[in-house]
C-alpha cells in the first residue's frame, strides 16, 4: 500500500500574514513612498489593498505614508487633472531632495489607476517593488528610470509589431 500523502487543509478564511522578521539590520531611509487613493472601486484599488502587506514587507527599509481617503480626496480636489489616476504611488528620493532639492529630478510616480485590468495592475506593482529594491543604492536613479522607460517603449513596440505580424500570418 502506498504511503499516505499528507495534504494540509486550506484555511477557511484568508489569514492575516504575520510580519516577516528582519533578517538584516535596517538600512537608512532612501525613499519616502506616498500612497494617494480615493478608493475608486477599480481593479487597481483592489490589487493594491490585497497586496499592500507584501509591499509593506518588501519596502520595510523605506517610509510609507498613506494619505487616507479624506486627504486623498482633498488632494484630488486640488489636482483635478489626476482624478482617476489613483491609486498613485509617489516616491520621493531623499538622496536627490537632500542633494539638489525639489527643483529637478527628485523621485518617480506610478499611476496605478490608469491600468484597467487586475493583471496589468499586479504586474505594474510587482515591477515597481522590484525597481525600488534593486535601485535603493543607485547613484544614477534618474538615468536608470529614463533608460528603463526607453527600453520598455522599444520592447513593447517590437512585441506589438510581432503580434501584429503573427496575427496577419495566421489569418492568411
Amino acid at each position: 500500500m502506498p504511503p499516505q500523502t499528507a495534504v494540509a487543509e486550506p484555511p477557511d478564511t484568508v489569514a492575516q500574514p504575520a510580519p516577516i522578521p528582519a533578517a538584516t539590520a535596517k538600512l537608512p531611509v532612501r525613499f519616502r513612498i506616498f500612497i494617494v487613493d480615493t478608493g475608486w472601486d477599480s481593479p487597481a484599488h483592489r490589487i493594491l489593498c490585497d497586496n499592500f502587506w507584501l509591499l509593506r514587507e518588501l519596502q520595510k527599509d523605506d517610509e510609507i505614508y498613506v494619505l487616507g481617503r479624506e486627504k486623498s480626496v482633498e488632494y484630488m480636489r486640488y489636482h483635478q487633472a489626476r482624478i482617476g489616476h489613483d491609486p498613485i504611488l509617489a516616491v520621493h528620493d531623499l538622496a536627490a531632495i537632500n542633494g539638489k532639492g525639489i527643483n529637478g529630478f527628485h523621485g518617480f510616480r506610478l499611476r496605478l489607476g490608469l491600468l484597467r485590468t487586475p493583471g496589468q495592475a499586479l504586474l505594474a506593482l510587482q515591477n515597481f517593488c522590484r525597481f525600488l529594491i534593486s535601485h535603493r543604492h543607485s547613484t544614477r536613479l534618474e538615468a536608470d528610470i529614463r533608460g528603463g522607460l526607453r527600453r520598455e517603449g522599444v520592447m513593447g513596440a517590437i512585441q506589438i509589431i510581432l503580434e501584429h505580424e503573427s496575427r496577419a500570418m495566421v489569418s492568411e
Partner: protein
Amino acid sequence: MTEKISEYLSILLSAAAMGYMIYEIDKRQRKMHQIFDVLGTSDAHLTARLEGMVERGELQPYTGMTLA
C-alpha cells in the same frame, strides 16, 4: 523599368515599416510615461505639499499591514 518600379516600391515599403515602428515606439513610450514617470520641477509644488505634511506631523509613517 519594372526593376526601377520594384526598387521604389521596396524603398517605400521599408520607409512605411520604419515609420510604423517609430510611431509604435513613440506611442508606447508616451503611455509608459503616463503610468510611470519621474518627478521633476513641474511636480515641485506637489512634493513640497506632501513633504510639508510630513514635517508638520500631519502624516506619520504607516505601520499597518493592511489598507482600509
